[in-house]
């Protein structure tokens, strides 16, 4: 009898959920912990250059476009709110809100990335121009890479949203991608503060 019961169920047996946290959400948080440490290693390099070695910041002939980057920051922060809006929308069953929120988030992320690329081409120094340039490019570049990954995830989420794959019951795909996007956003605030403002 037991054998029949086993055979009726295809695939692996259903796992027992021993925690209130959803497995994928927990996985994303752990991944983010790991990402934070990766940023941590880059910030350690920043610390060595700026605090231990007293490199002038920014090194004299160069200067940082604090204002443009500030606008850019505002755009990225806003995108976090639209992301939150889209998640709340789908939780309430508002599919149009989900789609609009994801599209807006994606577009703002794209604008951020393009502005960043534009900044690279106009900023007037290169990664090989001393430790200041090195740290500037590597920290913002590392963050840019994360924005790129976040944009890819957003793109996939948007495609699935327009195909109607999310519902009030099934929105983990939006939630998990959203957590990553918020992380990218918060990380930028840290990078902007340390590299541009301080």
């Amino acid at each position, binding site marked *: 009898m*037991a054998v029949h019961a086993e055979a009726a169920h295809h695939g*692996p047996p259903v796992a027992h959920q021993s925690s209130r946290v959803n497995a994928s959400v927990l996985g994303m948080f752990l991944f983010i912990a790991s990402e934070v440490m990766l940023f941590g*290693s880059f910030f350690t*390099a920043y610390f*060595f250059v700026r605090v231990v070695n007293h490199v002038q910041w920014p090194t004299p002939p160069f200067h940082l476009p604090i204002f443009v980057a500030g606008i850019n920051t505002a755009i990225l922060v806003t995108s976090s709110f639209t992301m939150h809006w889209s998640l709340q929308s789908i939780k309430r069953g508002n599919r149009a809100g989900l789609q609009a929120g994801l599209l807006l988030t994606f577009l703002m992320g794209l604008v951020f990335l393009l502005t960043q690329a534009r900044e690279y081409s106009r900023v007037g120094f290169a*990664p090989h121009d001393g430790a200041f340039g090195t740290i500037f490019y590597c920290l913002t570049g590392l963050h840019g890479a994360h924005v790129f990954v976040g944009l890819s995830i957003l793109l996939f989420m948007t*495609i699935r949203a327009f195909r109607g794959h999310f519902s009030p019951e099934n929105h983990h795909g939006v939630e998990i991608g959203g957590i990553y996007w918020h992380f990218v956003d918060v990380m930028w605030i840290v990078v902007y503060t340390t590299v541009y403002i301080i």
Partner: protein
Amino acid sequence: MTATVASHETHVEHGPRRPPAGWRRLLFPGFLRTAWMVPLFFGIGCGIVVLCRWWGGWHPIWFGEIIVLVAALIAAPVGFLAGIGAFDYWARYAIGAPTVPEDHSGHGAYSWRDYFRVNTDHKVIGMQYLATTIFFFLAAGMLAMLVRAELAKPGMQFFNNQTYNGLFSVHASLMIFLFVIPAFAGLANFVVPLMLGAPDMAFPRLNALSYWLLPIAGTMMLCSFLVPGGAFAAGWTGYAPLSVHQPMGTIFFNMGVQWAGASSIMTALNFLVTIITMRAPGMTFWRMPLLVWANFTTSLLVVIATPFIAGSQFFVMFDRVMHTSFFETAGGGYPLGYQHIFWFYSHPAVYIMMLPGFGIASEVISVMSRKPIFGYRLMALSLLAILVLGFSVWAHHMFVSGMAPWLRVPMMVTTLLIAVPTGIKVFSWLATLWEGKIAFNTPMLWAVGFVSMFVIGGLSGIYLGAVPIDIHVSDTYFIVAHIHYVLFGGSLFTIFAGIYYWFPKMTGRMYNERLGKLHFWLTFIGFNATFFPMHLIGVQGMPRRVSDYDPVFANWNLFISVASFFLGASTIVFLRSRRRRRSSTSTRSRRSSAIPTSTASRGRSTRCSAAVLANRCRWTDARSRRCQRDRHRAEADRGDRAAQGRRRPAGHRYLPRQPAAARLCGVPGHASRSGGPAPGPDGFDTARGRNSRRRLRGRIGSRHRRPRRGRTAGAAGR
């Protein structure tokens, strides 16, 4: 019957998918698709590099080193992964296409070919890990033999300096990144879900991906011998700025570490989520086997620390390729920063390489002494203490590096503090052995060998933690002896203990006990003969990582070289003892504290949550009324009326005599299959009869927990 069952939304087929006929076969995940996808991705990588350089106006547009980095070491491996099918599911999911069910956990491998496919069954992945890591272990061992051949006599014999440096660098890197760390991950992959009563890991596809990153990393490191300039030769530590100015092989190390690091981060994440969210009903954290605790702690270390080595290798690569100034003093960089960042990973990494071994040792020693582990909670807590302290000691690798002098003493103190939790573990093992009924079979020999050898390594570690001694023996063979006592006598011995211990579980067959023991003794003798004298010549000042040495050390070095060849030869016995000998006892010949003996070894996974728990109750929680209650609830959840009917009266401390595991796991004819007596509910083989179990119960109850003599005596007399 099965056709009438409504399929779930993600229908999972039985058995591996059959490749289609004709040209469509080229699109089917596997090595055929890899054969054209790797060149394709290589081409794409080249295209990206050329396009970027043309657009940015950099000359020359075709620049070999960057092509190798981007196209060969990043794009081509991605192509390999895509070709073999690691991304198929995700790619379809991402674009919202209907996902194709793959062979999934519980389906396992049907032929040897399935081990060469992307397989999501944790048991298959565990085997893949072990086979791969043993391959790289042998390769790295060969390199060590070459190193010792060169060192057999003073003067230069076979290699020039650069090649010699490459040999020991690749030896260490392979042993660390491709053997010790992933071998533990492989063993844990196999046993942790079984111990938790989980059907599989939390993310089976991620699990498969993290395995397939390994062959990439290993191939990369081995292939560095083939590029102009030879293999990376700055040691496995790859100190900058030295490594920045090495030949091209260094990039192979940098990228190899990234791939292996990504693999271990993903595995660790998977373990953590599995352990947190997929424990069987009633399997609380404080009932988990110590092996699971060890892997939990290790995974935390990996997730937190590994990004730092990724960062350090990125910096070296950028300094080299993009001429940044992370470690170039001319541009304002800070060379010592590399060591700080590197050791912030690589000191925790020595615990990543050791804690799972602690778990295996706890498992083996407890089972083979027929006693629950002594001080279970403290054993788990000491793992956590090592985790926390492990992050505060990195600079003890840098006492002579010229770092800030005030950093030395705090680092010395924290280093010595780590001896406390480690000491707790060692004494707990000894206390477990104390008055146990010890079975000195092969796994136990390795485990006990581990305890003794690890103590030697640990003691020399305390020497090295003290600043004055460290300054004296820094960069001498004393360090080489220390690291090999810890990693060979520690990690490798426990890996062998684990392999022999779970070999019957994994393969369904018994290893050759006689050859296993022979393997242990040959290795044990060879190991000590090789590495113990290194302490002596180290204290006398023979420098490490140098291909030539003072003739004063000639005799000892010849002795060490001969001993190391003996040690290398002992591995042949290991390979030979794998030769399968059919065993009538099969998986049930192995006593186990944590895996119910009836859990299927291959093929379908079965969920034995209540049975798993029943076992754990005996081993961690002798005051087990609450544990028993949870177990009965778990049984009731499954609607197993039969088990409930036969339940002992409430408050009874022991398990029903019939093996609950057999009923719960739906293994038909479990008791009668072997013809002999059924294994006891605790997984013991019953060759010694009921009386020995009774004695054991008395011991568990009366000595190691709150004494309740009256009840115990009553239970035994009933």
